[in-house]
């Protein structure tokens, strides 16, 4: 404190060491002075490229998360539901078949409720295909019983299927297993695709940062040589360069993240994402946003690591 009065016009200095978490975070955003010249002209365009990459990465990650969530919602929904389908039989009238099935279901532990659909309900289900009033009285229609089971303590489905088939000829238990398997397969494919995009975006970012680092080094070859001649080690130079890329990566990451969050929120509001992957992208839940918030940090980490490795490799070829 005492020497500030002695020095009326303090010379600009190198960056001080950051102190504390707040200062460290601020240091991520505010670029301090470096011994290596900032790549000036390439700075903004590089931020924009990294922002675009992070936007794509966040979209892919968000899509993966919401597909995962929606698929698990659906499968658990379906897992709690069964259907008994009763084909019309020449011997037994449908009402008797239903009564027999209902009797079996009532006596089965783990069945929460069983609702028989009336013939009118069944006709309503067919209406989209056959049109209203086109179902004649004598058209034999299968009847359906909708069953909700306790997912925590499900009944023995194989035994139940056996006793239902025995109770009423033509009655079969549909566990939706096939539909569920296909849904899961589709969801897995979508998630795999999303992570594939994420990997491609990361690889592209690495290539771009490598290129930019090399360009910056060769533009500042003279500075690097002077630093070497006055005794700088490679890791000192690498540290100066990678700090620059830390800021570029983090800033680009923040911009990309902001754009992607805005996109997800807009999709949520308009509900316009329903068609994407056949799954509502708006399945993104509040708890997913912290995962997306990791994207700028990941971008900064990738940029820093890439820049460091590139600098160390390039400098090894100099004396």
């Amino acid at each position, binding site marked *: 404190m005492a020497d500030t009065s002695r020095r009326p016009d303090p*010379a600009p200095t190198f960056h001080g060491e950051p102190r504390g978490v707040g200062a460290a975070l601020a240091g991520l955003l505010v670029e301090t*002075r470096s*011994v290596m010249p900032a790549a000036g002209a390439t700075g903004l365009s590089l931020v924009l490229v990294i922002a675009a990459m992070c936007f794509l990465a966040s979209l892919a990650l968000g899509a993966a998360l919401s597909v995962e969530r929606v698929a698990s919602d659906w499968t658990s929904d379906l897992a709690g539901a069964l259907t008994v389908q009763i084909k019309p039989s020449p011997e037994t009238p449908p009402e008797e078949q239903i009564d027999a099935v209902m009797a079996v279901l009532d006596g089965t532990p783990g069945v929460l409720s069983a609702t028989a659909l009336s013939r009118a309900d069944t006709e309503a289900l067919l209406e989209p295909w056959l049109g209203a009033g086109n179902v004649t009285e004598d058209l034999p229609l299968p009847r359906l019983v909708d069953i909700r089971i306790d997912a925590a303590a499900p009944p023995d489905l194989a035994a139940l299927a056996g006793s239902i088939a025995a109770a009423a000829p033509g009655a079969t238990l549909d566990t939706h297993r096939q539909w569920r398997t296909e849904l899961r397969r589709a969801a897995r494919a979508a998630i795999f695709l999303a992570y594939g995009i994420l990997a491609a975006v990361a690889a592209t970012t690495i290539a771009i940062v490598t290129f930019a680092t090399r360009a910056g080094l060769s533009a500042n070859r003279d500075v690097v040589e002077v630093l070497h*001649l*006055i*005794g700088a080690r490679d890791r000192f130079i690498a540290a100066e360069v990678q700090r620059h890329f830390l800021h570029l990566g983090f800033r680009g990451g923040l911009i990309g993240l902001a754009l992607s969050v805005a996109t997800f929120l807009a999709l949520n509001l308009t509900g316009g994402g329903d068609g994407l992957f056949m799954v509502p992208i708006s399945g993104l839940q509040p708890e997913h946003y912290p995962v997306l918030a990791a994207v700028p940090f990941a971008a900064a980490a990738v940029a820093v690591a890439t820049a460091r490795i590139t600098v160390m490799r390039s400098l090894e070829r100099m004396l």
Partner: protein
Amino acid sequence: MIRFENVGMRYGMGPEVLRDVSFHLAPASFHFLTGPSGAGKTSLLKLMFLATRPSRGLITMFGKDIATLPRAELPPLRRRIGVVFQEFRLLDHLTTYENVALPLKIQGRGEDSYRADVEELLAWVGLGDRMSARPPTLSGGEKQRAAIARAVVAQPDLLLADEPTGNVDPEMGQRLLRLFVELNRLGTSVLIATHDRALVETAGAPELVLHKGGLTIRG
């Protein structure tokens, strides 16, 4: 401390610019390096500040054989050598203060530990009011003094200067010579390449004379 034995040097496949150069610089010695333009002064200095390796011969610096020294061991040696480059080679994006403080920063020292010393040195070479200026805005003489300040700031064991008084008036030249002599008294070996006869005669130090790539010692 520094020993050259039959050193030869050529750039690429070109002719030898230095031929069979042998000499020895003792610790705390003071020498001038003279000779006509193109005689190889800068090439000899380049070998000494480890910017290049000899084509043949043996160079020992601080007890290490330069030809076989691994790359990773060069920085500690270079930190013991202060260099005033002929074309100054200040970093244009840093201020004068930062340029001069750079060798200390590179050594990993905190700014608090050297700030006062750097400011004092800058005041001594007459750049006290130009600390925040960047090299492109400095005059030739100011750049030269900044380059000298950077070379001496870490109190090196060896100071190499290529035409250090070429851009200053005779009065400033004498002042800078006194700085070199003072540094030499504190134990630094000094080698100054120069055309300035007045400087050589004032100091009265021995001369290494280069002529067409060969070296003789006078005085």
